[in-house]
């Protein structure tokens, strides 16, 4: 993977060189370049640390699937397939996408005046069969990713402790959290710019 790899946001929005959207993105060149650099550093890291390529793409496939966008899901699913790991992982991730469908954001506020805004919703736990396919580390990562995607205000030290207990280090949790949070950004830029591309005002 290299810097010459196509810009993922342009690719998934369908931005052609010289188009109206290309001109709009060109006016925020640092944001455009660094959104792509964020993608590259998460999916082709110079210093991979403890998080494997398979873990990165499996998590991304799950997150893209929860956002319900077919093209983005296909992009990360293809990336997972390219990792060449056991096919049971991909199948288990697909199963968890179907089991994990929800509508966010929901969750609870710290007890107080905002408690009237607490909104209930599913707390995702990987199924026993998929847990054996995914292993403890990836299962814990998927459960945490579901929390980050749909109910980030439910986050807690206990949720992080579950990751630590499943074998993630503090640094690994930072990378995992960045990956899910970055995708929450990238997916929304793609969805937003796609809508803008379809709405030409002349």
């Amino acid at each position, binding site marked *: 993977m290299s810097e010459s790899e196509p810009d993922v946001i342009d690719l998934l929005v369908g931005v052609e060189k010289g188009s109206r959207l290309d001109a*709009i993105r060109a*006016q*925020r*060149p*640092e*944001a455009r370049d*660094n*959104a792509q650099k*964020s993608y590259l*550093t998460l999916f082709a*890291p*110079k*210093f991979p*640390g403890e998080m494997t390529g398979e873990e990165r793409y499996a998590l991304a496939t799950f997150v893209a699937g*929860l*956002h*319900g966008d077919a093209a983005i899901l296909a992009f990360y699913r293809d990336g997972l397939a390219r990792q060449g790991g056991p096919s049971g992982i991909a199948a288990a991730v697909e199963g968890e996408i179907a089991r994990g469908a*929800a*509508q*966010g*954001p929901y969750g609870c*506020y*710290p007890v*107080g*005046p*905002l408690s009237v*805004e607490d909104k209930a919703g599913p707390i995702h736990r990987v199924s026993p069969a998929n847990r054996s396919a995914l292993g403890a580390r990836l299962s814990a990562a998927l459960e945490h990713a579901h929390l*980050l*995607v749909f109910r*980030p*205000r439910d*986050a807690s*030290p*206990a*949720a992080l*402790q579950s990751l*630590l*207990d499943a074998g993630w*280090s*503090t*640094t690994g*949790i*930072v*990378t995992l*959290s*960045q*990956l899910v*949070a*970055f995708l*929450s*950004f*990238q997916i*929304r*830029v793609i*969805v*937003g710019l796609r*809508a*803008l591309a379809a*709405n030409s*005002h002349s």
Partner: protein
Amino acid sequence: MSEKTIAVAHADRPVVFTQDEIGWAPWLEPLAADQLTDRHWAGLVDASRAKSPYFMLLARDPEILEARTKTDKDIFYNPAAGLPRAERELSAAATSRDNGCIFCASVHARFATTHSKRREDVQRLLDEGVGVDIDARWNAVIAASVALTSTPSAFGQGEIERLRAVGLDDLAIADAIHGAAFFNWANRLMLSLGEPTAAEKK
């Protein structure tokens, strides 16, 4: 044996949305100053960020922190045309209000106030929530941010048309999209790696 999270004393934990300056405490161990290598300093971008436990925690993966920070700066600080800074901050504050990030909302509500001089209107967003009726233009920016914050996304032609109707051009609409999308990244880190704390007594 796995690592452990950090316990934070809850005594004065903020439980409402506020424009006051509040603090933030990590649930995982940030890097210590003497652990920083050139690679970490590059990731921090601004050396002054070494004073922040949030950035010192994120510095554990410096490459994604650097790309994240440069994306953030161009979206919010690039002064060339597009959406006025006050309304970029409004998109950040509205997104943070919807996801439930009391800390992010406090910072960006304050910035929205500084740049708009409309402290009372900003406070109404915090007090009443994202359904608040302020004026047609602010309502449209808030509604677009909320639609994009939903998972799966609820953002589409309706939001774009409404932004056009209140005077936003293509670049301004793209700025609103990026402001809300970026805070879906930032909120998830701030909410899940630590918690807001009371303002330092002065």
